[in-house]
């Protein structure tokens, strides 16, 4: 069953720990203290921003019919099966940046500062395959982020997941 990261915005205190955890998980050393000294500095693929007094967590939604996947000329972006997250194959990416320009309505794709390829949230796919939570969720001190199966959500909520732009917002917001 497809899994998503469920965010409780009321619980999030905007501490940016998820960003640190994300960057560390995508660093060479995978160790925070070493990672901060790496050159180039590892990048985080989730971001927390305060907008209108709300701490918004913003990362890839792993859209069902992902526009970034459509635009990519080399099929470097895609998912292995319908339940997998949308990931970038670094070896296939030519860094043409067309996905950055029009591929993502949410503006979550960016160029890797190390090798120029496009980078985005990969849902910590290695962890996921072992049943573990992505780094942002496992590292959240208030457990505002949780890895949940889609069927754990109420039905009307399930429908929204994967839509390009969420139309209805509840107290508990999922960032699929």
């Amino acid at each position, binding site marked *: 069953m497809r899994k998503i990261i469920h965010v409780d*915005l009321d619980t999030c205190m905007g501490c940016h720990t998820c960003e640190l955890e994300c960057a560390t998980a995508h660093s060479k050393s995978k160790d925070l203290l070493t990672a901060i000294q790496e050159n180039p500095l590892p990048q985080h693929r989730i971001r927390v*921003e305060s*907008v*209108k007094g*709300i701490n*918004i967590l*913003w990362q890839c939604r792993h859209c069902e019919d992902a*526009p970034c996947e459509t*635009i990519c*000329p*080399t*099929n*470097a972006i895609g998912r292995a099966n319908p339940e997998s997250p949308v990931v970038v*194959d670094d*070896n*296939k*990416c*030519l*860094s*043409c*940046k*067309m996905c*950055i*320009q*029009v591929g*993502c*309505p*949410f*503006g*979550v*794709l*960016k160029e890797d500062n190390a090798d*120029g*390829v496009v980078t985005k949230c990969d849902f910590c796919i290695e962890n996921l395959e072992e049943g573990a939570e992505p780094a942002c969720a496992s590292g959240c001190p208030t457990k505002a982020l949780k890895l949940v199966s889609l069927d754990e959500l109420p039905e009307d909520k399930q429908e929204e997941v994967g839509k*390009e*732009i*969420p*139309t*209805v*917002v*509840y*107290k508990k*917001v999922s960032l699929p």
Partner: protein
Amino acid sequence: MKVIIDGKDVELQEQKTILKVAEEIGIEIPTLCHHDGLSSYGSCRLCIVEITNNGNTEIDTACTRSVEDGMEIKTATERLTEERKLIAELLLAQAPESEKLKASLSKLGVQESRFEAREDSDCIVCGRCVRACKEEVGAGAITFVGRGYKTKVDTPFSINSDVCIGCTACAEVCPTGAITVEDEEAMRYIRYFNTELELAECAECGKYINPKRMIEKLKKEDFAYYPEENFELCEACRRNKEMNKFADKFLEAK
């Protein structure tokens, strides 16, 4: 389909290149012109392997050759190692100043070439940039010019390309780092190809984003889901716009 690679038995269900199969079982074959995102080409010849099938032994490139049932493949015989070294030195003499190339060739133990370095040369004619531009990006701004060892990559007549969209994929895939891109104010310069392009400004913050020609090209393609105004925004402003919408809806629901 059964093949043997370096003594290991491998069973396969589908057609794959020797390079792919070797990679899957953890055997590294050196490559240079190969790129996972591009069509296979077989020009650098570094990935040569010895193939024995039906009693015949031949040398072919792992990136272009698909496995066939019964093949016995050797990826690192003495003969191959020697020939790879020679080819690597031929390549290095074509781009003697390239640190990027030297780094790639270090696995073969080649850091110097027995051949006299070519003057004013930094391209090994691997065709990655040409394939990326033509086959993947669909611009076809550059191609091969000349023949034999004088072959190089250039725009037609070596003048400012009017079809380049400035995506810079050519520079990114170049294994010698010969192609570089410089953004200065409102202009993007790809000096290797005598090409310059105007950059678009973000309609919101004024920051220079991608080249105008690239945005024009993308606008012509079918992105029904994509709001027209988003083409003119940088990713940060696009993100902010969506975040604000989100926040509004969230507050409204509350």
